[in-house]
């Protein structure tokens, strides 16, 4: 039973640590509720037998009053255990959510290429919320009801051992079938959920790119594509429903058999004078009571199976470790010294795919405060150099070091405290201006935020915002020009005050005028810092100390910027001329 839903769900138990009081309270409330349900048919038996034997009305009234009290008690106990279980489930799943978020945020970009944001959202929130519902169900409906089933068998034994003898095989049969059928539907449910997540990812992308689709006249095609995906989802859902139904159908049939069995056995025993009418009635009551937990367990079982699938997908998500370790491995605890840092590449080879080398034997050394410009054609490997220095990729051969420490041995977060990367792509959060700079770090005060905005040259712009630092930016809120977005990215870097600045074509998306507006802030950022700046337009490298020309992943030229620019035979000079 490796694929048992319960086995899968047991992963969750560690998220319940620290919830001992709630767990203990439930351990008290749940058996109490079960006991109150078990005692009711016994009271009915006494009531009927007392009625038929002509006992005094006082006695009957007392039994009736007790019955009502037990019913009210059951009500209170149920509400209390529901609430405690819900609290337990939400607090437990929030721990799981925190784990997942922390894990996902540390994944490399490859991870995000495989999982679009819509899919991750469905995993981290959708799947986990489904789990929250199931976790309370797991405790209340499944465990409590299984306890109730056991209790019913015990009660029947107390009524008449022959009743228990008849019901025992039934209970055993149910258990056997339970073992046999459990998990059968899981692959089908998983297939349906995969199809559903795929559809959601499709919709997310198409909604975001609706305008592109429309202006390319691709609406009809997109709708046809949607149709195909929905048909697939329907097919899988239908198959999943057909398989999932076997389990509740079996249990319900068994439950019907148990009712008929109860009636038959009681009638037979009653006819032989060995069973009172009240006991026959109680026996039927228990048989009916048995139907309820089985029903509850079966309907819940469906959810449980879905939840188990969710858990499996979540554990898979958590297990994506190892293939590209951006996570700080225990060994990667290297620290960077304070103060200015140098940078160095030593005989670096690198390729994203085997057989397709991107960099071949690239070396250079930067002293603290020195600035290097890298030029070359699209695909010459310029950006890769920056990615290596930022620890986004690691070389196949050779070493990449910053401040004398091998980047591969550094905790990426320690590295990124001292090294900043500016690219053409600026991601603006749908959040306040402050949060966009601090990334929700509450320890950064507004003074520092304003200082960073000032350095980036955004003070004027900020002053015009309706709510100042509290103005919400991003999609659907306040729009920004590409230039302002890039300045905001610079402000983020100013706030962190790094020793090394890496720039990967930061102005590629900007028009020349905006680019010029950006220059003062970029110059301020480079001032006194070690820098590696990648540009496809060689003219923008005027303030660099040195220039490296890459072609096809190899260094074809490397020297002082001013020297190379003045030398008419140099590649750099040629690039300046043709650009």
């Amino acid at each position, binding site marked *: 039973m490796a694929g048992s839903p319960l086995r899968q769900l047991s992963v969750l138990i560690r998220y319940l640590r620290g919830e001992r009081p709630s767990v203990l309270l439930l351990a008290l409330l749940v058996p109490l509720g079960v006991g109150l349900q078990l005692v009711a048919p016994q009271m009915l038996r006494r009531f009927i037998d007392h009625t038929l034997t002509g006992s005094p009305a006082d006695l009957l009234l007392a039994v009736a009053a007790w019955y009502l009290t037990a019913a009210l008690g059951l009500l209170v106990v149920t509400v209390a255990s529901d609430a405690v279980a819900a609290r337990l489930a939400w607090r437990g799943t929030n721990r799981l959510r925190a784990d997942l978020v922390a894990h996902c945020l540390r994944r490399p970009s490859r991870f995000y290429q495989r999982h679009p944001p*819509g899919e991750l959202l469905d995993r981290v929130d959708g799947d986990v919320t489904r789990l929250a519902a199931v976790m309370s169900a797991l405790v209340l409906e499944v465990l409590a009801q299984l306890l109730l089933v056991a209790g019913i068998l015990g009660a029947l034994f107390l009524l008449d051992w022959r009743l228990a003898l008849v019901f025992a095989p039934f209970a055993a049969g149910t258990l056997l079938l339970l073992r046999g059928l459990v998990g059968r539907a899981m692959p089908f449910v998983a297939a349906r959920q995969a199809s559903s997540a795929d559809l959601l990812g499709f919709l997310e*992308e198409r909604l975001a790119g609706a305008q592109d689709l429309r202006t390319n006249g691709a609406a009809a095609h997109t709708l046809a594509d949607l149709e195909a995906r929905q048909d697939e989802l329907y097919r899988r859902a239908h198959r999943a429903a057909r398989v999932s139904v076997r389990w509740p159908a079996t249990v*319900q049939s068994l439950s019907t058999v148990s009712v008929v069995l109860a009636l038959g056995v009681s009638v037979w025993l009653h006819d032989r004078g060995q069973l009172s009418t009240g006991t026959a009635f109680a026996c*039927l009551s228990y048989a009916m009571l048995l139907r309820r937990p089985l029903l509850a367990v079966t309907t819940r079982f469906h959810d449980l199976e879905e939840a188990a699938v969710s858990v499996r997908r979540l554990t898979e998500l958590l297990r994506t470790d190892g293939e590209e370790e951006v996570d700080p491995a225990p060994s990667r605890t290297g620290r960077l010294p304070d103060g200015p840092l140098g940078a160095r590449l030593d005989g670096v080879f690198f390729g994203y795919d085997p057989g397709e080398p991107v960099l071949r034997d690239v070396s250079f050394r930067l002293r603290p405060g020195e600035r290097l410009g890298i030029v070359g054609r699209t695909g010459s490997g310029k950006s890769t150099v920056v990615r290596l220095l930022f620890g986004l990729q690691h070389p196949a051969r050779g070493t990449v070091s910053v401040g004398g420490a091998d980047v591969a041995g550094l905790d990426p977060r320690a590295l990124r405290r001292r090294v900043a990367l500016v690219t053409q792509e600026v991601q603006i959060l749908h959040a306040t201006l402050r949060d966009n700079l601090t990334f929700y770090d509450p320890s950064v005060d507004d003074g520092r935020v304003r200082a960073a905005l000032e350095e980036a040259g955004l003070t004027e712009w900020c002053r015009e915002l309706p709510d100042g630092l509290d103005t919400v930016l991003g*999609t659907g809120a306040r729009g920004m020009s590409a230039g302002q977005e890039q300045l905001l990215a610079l402000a983020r870097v100013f706030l962190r005050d790094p020793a090394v600045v890496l720039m990967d074509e930061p102005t590629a998306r900007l028009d020349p005028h905006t680019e010029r507006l950006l220059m003062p802030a970029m110059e301020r950022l480079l001032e006194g810092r070690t820098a590696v700046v990648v540009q496809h337009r060689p003219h923008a490298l005027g303030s660099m100390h040195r220039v490296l020309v890459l072609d096809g992943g190899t260094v074809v030229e490397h020297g002082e910027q001013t020297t190379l620019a003045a030398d008419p035979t140099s590649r750099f000079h040629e690039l300046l001329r043709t650009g």
Partner: protein
Amino acid sequence: MTDTGTRARGDIGSRGTFGRLGAVLRGSAGAYWTLTGLWVLLRAGTLAVGLLFQRLFDEIGAGGGVWPLIAWVAAIEGARMCLQFGVMINRLEPHVQYATTARLRRRLLGSALRGRGAAARTAPGESLRVVGEDVDETGFFVAWAPTNLAHWLFVVAAVTVMMRIDALVTTALLVLLVLITLVTAGVHGRFLRHRRATRAASAEVAGALREAFGAVKAVQAAGAEDHVAAHIARLNTARAGAAVREELFAGVQRTVIGNAAPLGIGVVLLLTAGRAHEGTFSVGDLALFTFYLQILAEALASIGILSVRLQRVSVALDRIGAFLGRPSGTASSVSAEKPERKPEPEPPSAPATVPAPRQDSGLRELTVRGLTARHPGTEHGVEDVDLTFVRGSVTVVTGGVGAGKSTLIQAVLGLLPHERGAVLWNGEPIADPASFLVPPRCGYTPQDPRLFSGTLRENILLGLPDEDGTVLEEAVHTAVLAPDVAAMRDGVDTVVGPRGLRLSGGQLQRTAIARMLARRPELLVLDDVSSALDPTTEHLLWSRLLDSPVTVLAVSHRPALLRAAAQVIVLGDGRVEATGTWDEILAASPETRRLATGPDHRDDTGPA
């Protein structure tokens, strides 16, 4: 309840949850009513089982005649199993549910594809929630709803039977059930309040997660993983609080209704205890009451859930209706559509008296007259722009940041609503540019193009027929994408990843250009597409683009292109500052030249 009833053909935009549900169900009505009929049949069987129990316990002492009763119980229950699990749950329910969600999603996506950036104006988490959660909620509801009519019929029949046995006890039970209903109704208001709070908190969590995953590069680059995670954890804690409160009130409602049966039996016992010896209330009657009370409680629970689910589905339908209604304004009443139907130009939103230009007339001249358009809700826009260009010409729009270059392009293409002015095709006004200026008349590559998960081929063709691959090959060649494709192991079948993230910025832009070219439009509109390209590639791209006899409207700053243009439009602060050839403009105003070009001029190498 709130159904207007006056609209025979209700729509999701109509008032009243039932009207909208009717509209949602159109297309699955047959399956829906079959399901309802079968549920009624099942409940009739349950009613009969109760009556059998009654006779059984009355006759148990009398001897004989009991065994056929037990056989009947077995037969009815057996038939129920076959129907419920062989037909209803495994066939009809998925059919109703998934046919409904498919229809809704088709309409929602169709509306987003037609609308003027409805999705762009909706907050990121929001539109996905509508097509995801809200549609799922509705689909689930319509598959579940058929049980309700059966429950109501059962309640009426069961109460009638019980009344005929003992009016006093039955009346007392009805009072109890009414009391229970009142209690739960009282709790329901508070439940709803907490439910709304939970949904709002959920939306915040979803939004924050989506932002964090969407902007993960920025988060990682800033080393802010812990702070972002802590922020999300705070939102999660707030939601957990709201959800637990919601669950408490939901639990009270559920439990009070769920325990109606034991409470009812208690009442029956109390009321009959005094007159047990009179023989007016037999053991068989007690059996019947016990059995019916359990089913009544189940029915009551289901009916109670109905109000909760109805509330939820009503909220979901509100949002779905808003999503469908928003893009094309008040006039929109999206009629039921088939996917086969080609998205024809939508009914014009401009005055219907303006005739649409004849579609078969090729471009001779495009004129923009007095065009004023703004980004909704802002002052940012273009004002009073005039512009004319003829077939085969190259027109370049240039200007500084915030000059309104992209806005002008979007306004001409009808992607922004026009405040004033018109766009004329061969002298005839275009009523709805958004649906007219599409391939094969016009192709557009935005500044920030979107690609989709899938292969390069799928992204370029987007469903275009291309049996022999020539369309693709030609588009890839012209867009200077061929060397990149050749370097990829899978060529044009390379998977580009979500949103095309596996491609470099330059590859992404050239893929978008290839996508536009594959449709062979007469008029090419390009919004600063070459910015991520190196000079060599860019030069090649433009020489190929201008090689063919197409008409081009482009935003650019490249001196070479500006010089090649028949007409250059210099924009400043949303208005046309100068028009003419580049040489004319330079001669007239050196200042313009400074504004429009940048540091990539040979004699201007240093930063400003």
